[in-house]
């Protein structure tokens, strides 16, 4: 319902309520007056009659009782009945208004209650009529003979037509004033309604109409101010709406960019940590957890000491005074996450400067890289270079010393000269072999080696290789055993390369034998393949090492191995050579009991080669 109509309805209902209330108050006042009058008159009359004697009150023959006379002269319209009763309540005489029966009343015994007033219901209970009765004692010569009872109808709500003009005169002004106030109010309310309308318009984002100027000057001023305020508000709302739209757009764009940057950082191959000015981690990508083994959630918003207990890492990620040390830095530490997991981590720390202000630092970007592989490789390479330079320089040193001493000693000592020449020859051989090995492995790496295959008699080839090695290395007290069938198929191999492989296996077997141990080589043949076995009774290889022995530069950390010079190259090279011949090199070993290396060559491939050549 429209506000205006609702207001009108409320006014009408309120008016009616006021009128009803007025009428009620008037009637109630009138009734109270009548009741008070009935009580006062009843009491006066009763006292008057009580002063009379019984005989005067009760009609005698030929004489009307005094009661009848009084009642007839009584002007009160509410008078209902008058009666004289004896002390037993029996009526001696009565006068009543037409249609009224004297109600039954209780007998009053106590002298204190002889004079009094009481409310009595009519005998006809359905009529709901009540009487206000005043009773007083009646005496005859001082003797209590009975009571006089005077009853007035108790006034209720009744309406008589003669009251109409009075009521109308009361109602009319009310009735006339209400519309007057209503129209007055409407006139004053009109601008407020328009404001309300404008507010509605704002909320609906509709256009606004100019308010008609109200008639009252005070209200007029007020309305002008409100109007301009609303105009300003509406303009502001429009601006805010535009800004909101812009913000939503840029927020979406930002979210997209943020997600994109986050995706890039999360998928970055290195771990990334951002540590703010307070030294707390403000960003960490998923890689951090894998490298350091600490959950990202556990480090965010916390200082390094609170989530890290590695004494090597803490100083790398703790920067103290932010202003100092604005240089990027790089450190590598070996971190042991658990017993089986040791990593080399490189920490690159870059200061994050405020954009446009190179002197103010926002925090630090830490890029953590797992350099275990390259670190290990570098370590092995470093070790390798150590071994190689030792291996190269040792014969060189011997060559140098002997040649230098030949100048002084050799001139007059024939025996020494021969010795020196022999040593020099051997050392040159040793150098040459080593250099060949190095060159070979280098060429393998570059993929430049092509096997120069020829038909080779296995028996001669193996016997020659075995003799060469065992004769040259007769340093230890070892037993050698060679078992090769005299008749073996010809094989199609690169003799020089294959010799390197067999040499390396035999050299290792000797190097890692215990004094008094046996080094043996055997060969066997079946329809499909040829097997060459090199075995020793030496220190053996730990199970964990077996997987790695064919890796380039690998050297066991076993003490017995460390005591021997070596460069982690021989087995790697041997395997590559065997693989090149489509064969297989395997190792089985038991720590403390010895090792067994098996070269297995497929005969099929050699026969195919035969066919291809012929």
């Amino acid at each position, binding site marked *: 319902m429209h506000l205006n109509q609702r207001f009108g309805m409320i006014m009408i209902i309120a008016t009616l309520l006021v009128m009803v209330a007025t009428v009620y108050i008037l009637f109630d006042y009138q009734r109270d007056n009548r009741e008070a009058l009935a009580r006062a008159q009843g009491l006066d009359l009763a006292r008057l009659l009580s002063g009379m004697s019984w005989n005067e009150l009760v009609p005698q023959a030929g004489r009307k009782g005094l009661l009848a006379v009084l009642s007839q002269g009584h002007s009160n319209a509410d008078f209902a009945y008058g009666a004289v009763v004896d002390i037993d309540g029996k009526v001696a005489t009565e006068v009543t208004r037409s249609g009224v029966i004297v109600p039954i009343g209780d007998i009053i015994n106590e002298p204190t209650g002889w004079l009094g007033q009481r409310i009595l219901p009519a005998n006809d209970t359905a009529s709901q009529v009540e009487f206000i009765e005043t009773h007083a004692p009646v005496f005859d010569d001082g003797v209590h003979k009975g009571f006089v009872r005077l009853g007035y109808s108790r006034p209720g709500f009744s309406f008589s037509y003669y009251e109409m003009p009075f009521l109308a005169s009361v109602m009319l002004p009310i009735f006339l004033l209400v519309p007057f106030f209503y129209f007055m109010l409407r006139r004053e309310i009109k601008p407020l309604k328009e404001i309300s309308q404008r507010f509605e318009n704002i909320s609906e984002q509709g256009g606004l109409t100019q308010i008609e100027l109200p008639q009252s000057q005070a209200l007029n001023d007020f309305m002008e101010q409100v109007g301009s305020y609303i105009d300003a508000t509406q303009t502001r709302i429009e601006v805010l709406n535009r800004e909101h739209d812009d913000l939503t757009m840029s927020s979406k764009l930002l979210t997209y960019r943020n997600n994109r940057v986050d995706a890039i950082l999360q998928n970055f191959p290195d771990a990334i940590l951002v540590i703010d000015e307070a030294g707390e981690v403000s960003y960490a990508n998923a890689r951090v957890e894998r490298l350091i083994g600490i959950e990202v959630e556990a480090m965010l918003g916390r200082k390094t000491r609170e989530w890290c207990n590695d004494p090597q890492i803490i100083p790398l990620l703790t920067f103290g005074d932010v202003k100092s040390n604005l240089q990027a830095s790089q450190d590598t530490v070996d971190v042991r996450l658990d017993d089986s997991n040791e990593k080399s981590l490189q920490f690159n720390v870059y200061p994050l400067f405020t954009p446009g202000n190179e002197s103010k630092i926002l925090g630090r970007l830490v890029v953590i890289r797992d350099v275990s592989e390259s670190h290990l490789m570098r370590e092995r390479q470093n070790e390798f270079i150590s*071994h190689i*330079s030792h291996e190269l320089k*040792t014969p060189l040193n*011997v060559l140098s010393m*002997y040649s230098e001493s030949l100048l002084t000693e050799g001139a007059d000592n024939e025996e*020494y000269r021969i010795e020196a020449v022999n040593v020099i020859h051997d050392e040159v051989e040793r150098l040459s072999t080593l250099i060949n090995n190095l060159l070979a492995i280098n060429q393998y790496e570059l993929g430049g080696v092509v096997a120069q295959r020829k038909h080779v008699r296995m028996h001669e080839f193996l016997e020659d290789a075995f003799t060469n090695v065992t004769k040259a290395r007769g340093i230890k007290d070892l037993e050698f055993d060679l078992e090769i069938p005299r008749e073996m198929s010809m094989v199609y191999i690169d003799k020089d390369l294959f010799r390197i492989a067999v040499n390396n296996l035999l050299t290792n077997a000797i190097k890692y034998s215990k004094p008094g141990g046996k080094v043996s080589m055997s060969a066997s043949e079946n329809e499909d393949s040829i097997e060459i076995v090199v075995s020793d009774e030496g220190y053996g290889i730990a199970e964990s090492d077996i997987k790695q022995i064919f890796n380039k530069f690998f050297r066991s950390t076993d003490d017995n191995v460390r005591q021997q010079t070596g460069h982690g190259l021989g087995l790697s090279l041997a395997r590559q050579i065997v693989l090149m011949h489509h064969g297989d090199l395997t190792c089985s070993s038991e720590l403390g009991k010895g090792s067994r290396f098996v070269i297995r060559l497929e005969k099929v491939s050699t026969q195919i080669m035969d066919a291809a050549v012929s």
Partner: protein
Amino acid sequence: MNKILIADDEPHVLRVLKLSLEKEGYAVETCANGKEALTRLEQEYPDILITDIQMPLMTGEELCQHIKQHMPERKFLIFVLTSRTEIEHREWSRDINNLLFLEKPVSIRNLLEKIEAYFAGMTDSWRVS
């Protein structure tokens, strides 16, 4: 007679050095690794120790460290024969006194001159401290 102890796993080196040094009038003892050298040092008091680095059982580096820790009162000159030229491979020797590196291939004449100078008391010019 001045005593010199040589430790090297290369017998040819031992042979030539021993020959050359004995010819110059020094008493020369030889051994094949660091461990043997240590045993000798416990019994004898050489004036000079010449040692290779890479040797089985005990390397030259381990030998020198052991001497520094367990025989600080012993005063003798140590020549270390090395294959490496880089400074970082000599880091370990920083706080060992009277230690001198000789890079392979070693010139016998050069070595003899240094030894001679040492015994002549001209040690300060090349003492490593």
